[in-house]
């Protein structure tokens, strides 16, 4: 390789730096990035079309599965839109519970991001620590909803589960631990030299560029754009909560890290307020099966940025049109800009710094193949047995060995 010649290196669809399949084709000159070509759409699943073919109630659950991390964001955005069309007044307790889950989700997403960012710059210790702590908030979510990621809390007209007094105590306990740990991470992130070296000055997005390229969420806020849907276009219980919109003027990956860790502290504050001011009363109102004709645009500040849902009803059971704009789609333009004239080594962290979620971004069309008829659904155990049998037929038998191994491992 001569350092003067340019060559193209593929990153993706499958690459260790990317947690989801997307393709970045990078033109390199030595270690320097000369240009990036982004191809999206590998996760296109046809959710928007599928929504049109299902009823509103079914769609709540389908929409929740747009994304694995910000599932509550999508479903809240959707039900808020539908409630707006139907003219439903959601009880205040339900609004607070939605907010509570939303903030817990933000905590879990930001901690996840911090770990991923650590991994992208080769700092696995940070990954291990934050993901350990993330278990606390995952446990809280499981306690409240019964699930770790797709909470299934929302329904049209309210929420499905209540929050009891004991649960509130458990949450407060967990939040206390998390707050201490988060303060420690802020200390680490602002003092550890190698982290600062790898993050500051990387992926610079100036304020006017952020505005011009339409960046959203923490990506924009780290460039000094004071914009947060929770403040500017309040929904759920946010209008009644006291919180700060965190901004930073570093405009680089370091700034985005600072914004996210500080937002964690704001989230803890909001969770405490939600639990303290949780109003009494019902948690849901009855929603009609048929939603009257109308349209609504619903915005939600997901952990990664502004999530926009457009819903149109024609007066039937099924929506006429559902449009989902996930935050990553707005930020992907900014990535191209941020990668200009950077080094290859910066690429993973710059891409990770917008907290990309390509599954959210892609959604849409599935093509039904005729494989549907012969499809067999296997449970995990059945699948395992199937593979064991398959190997035994082919003369490989690990039964004895795996038994021994298991007893050995149990001793550890």
């Amino acid at each position: 390789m001569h350092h003067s010649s340019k060559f193209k290196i593929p990153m993706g669809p499958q690459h260790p730096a990317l947690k989801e399949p997307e393709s970045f084709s990078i033109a390199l000159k030595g270690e320097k990035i000369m240009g990036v070509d982004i191809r999206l759409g590998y996760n296109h699943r046809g959710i928007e079309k599928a929504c049109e073919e299902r009823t509103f109630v079914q769609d709540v659950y389908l929409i929740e599965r747009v994304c694995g991390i910000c599932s509550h964001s999508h479903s809240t955005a959707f039900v808020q839109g539908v409630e707006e069309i139907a003219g439903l007044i959601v009880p205040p307790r339900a609004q607070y519970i939605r907010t509570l889950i939303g903030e817990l989700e933000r905590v879990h997403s930001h901690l996840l991001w911090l770990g991923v960012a650590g991994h992208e710059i080769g700092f696995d210790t940070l990954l291990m620590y934050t993901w350990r702590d993330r278990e606390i908030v995952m446990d809280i979510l499981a306690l409240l909803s019964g699930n770790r990621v797709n909470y299934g809390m929302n329904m049209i007209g309210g929420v499905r589960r209540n929050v009891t007094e004991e649960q509130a105590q458990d949450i407060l306990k967990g939040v206390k631990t998390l707050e201490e740990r988060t303060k420690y991470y802020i200390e680490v992130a602002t003092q550890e030299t190698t982290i600062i070296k790898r993050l500051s000055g990387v992926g610079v997005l100036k304020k006017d560029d952020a505005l011009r390229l339409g960046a959203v969420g923490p990506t924009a806020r780290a460039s000094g754009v004071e914009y947060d849907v929770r403040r500017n276009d309040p929904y759920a219980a946010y209008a009644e909560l006291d919180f700060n919109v965190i901004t930073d003027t570093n405009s680089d990956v370091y700034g985005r890290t600072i914004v996210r860790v500080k937002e964690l502290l704001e989230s803890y504050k909001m969770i405490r307020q939600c639990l303290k001011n949780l109003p009494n009363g019902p948690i849901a109102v009855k929603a009609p099966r048929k939603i009257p004709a109308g349209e609504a645009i619903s915005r939600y500040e997901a952990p990664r940025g502004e999530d926009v849902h457009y819903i149109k009803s024609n007066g039937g059971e099924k929506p006429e049109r559902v449009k989902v704009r996930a935050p990553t789609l707005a930020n992907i333009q900014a990535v191209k800009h941020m990668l200009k004239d950077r080094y290859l080594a910066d690429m993973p962290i710059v891409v990770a710094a917008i907290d990309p979620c390509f599954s959210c971004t892609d959604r849409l069309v599935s093509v039904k193949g005729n494989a549907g008829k012969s499809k067999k659904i296997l449970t995990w155990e059945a699948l395992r047995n199937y593979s064991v049998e398959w190997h035994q037929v082919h003369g490989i038998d690990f039964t004895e060995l795996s038994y021994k191994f298991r007893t050995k491992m149990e001793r550890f």
Partner: protein
Amino acid sequence: MGLALFTILIFPGFLFVSVFGLMAEFFDRRIYARLQNRVGPPWFQAFADFIKLLGKEDIVPCAANEKMFDFAPLFALTSAVTVFLYIPLWKAPVTFSFNGDIVMMLYLLTIPTLAFFIGGWYSRSLYARLGSVRCVTQLFAYEVPLFMSILSSALLANTWELKEVAAFYLKHPLYSLFNLVGFFVSLIAILGKLEKVPFDIPEAETEIVAGTFTEYSGRRLAILRLTIDVEMVVGAALLVAVFFPFALYFQSVLGFLVAVLEICGVIALLALLRTIVARLRIDQMINFCWKVLVPFSLFQLLLNLILKGKLIL
């Protein structure tokens, strides 16, 4: 003849070093895991990985130069193992040594890195090529402070024979305290040699997949991984022999145990170092080596020259 063959092949040669290397990998990973609040692997994990890799399908990319692709791992392993034979760690019946062996050892330790470069380059994968270039670029950065600090220790002992160096520090143990700067400089430089965080740039997973080793699989990968383990042991042993050769003070078995403990101590230090930092970029790494490590090793050199002047007087 028989004894020499035994020394080369079994103890403290190939077999011993390999087993020690795999155990060291476990030790390193375990400490790394415990520092990260994880459980970590069981003691046989490294062996299990090695055996598993031996049984896996071995693929040679059709664009690769098969001979180079084949020989690179073997070259790397043999040269790393050879170094161990020359390191006087305990009172052994057979030791190979000659005047100037310390320089030869340092050069033998460079061969694995060059072999990685050749293997990666001739596998013709883009990732592997990038990794190879990074590998060699890095070599020029950490090699200088490593050589300077190790040789400045030898300078004080006034010999180029490692056995004599060790004997000198055994006689004047207090002098090894003056070498602490050199020890830490070479400890950090060794991290570059072993391609571990913060200097795992040639195999930075999130950037260039597995870097140099991207196209390697099965047996060849097993050998490459063993090479890195052996390098870790050899590097740690070299540091012990140059800076703290106190195991030679004890009788055979006790001496052996002390030496192993000392080596494990160095490995634990390496694990600690890589727990608390993030990976650097290649330009930052080179800057760090030339602007931080080299001045420190120059300081060590100067200090030892002054000490030596006093010694002669």
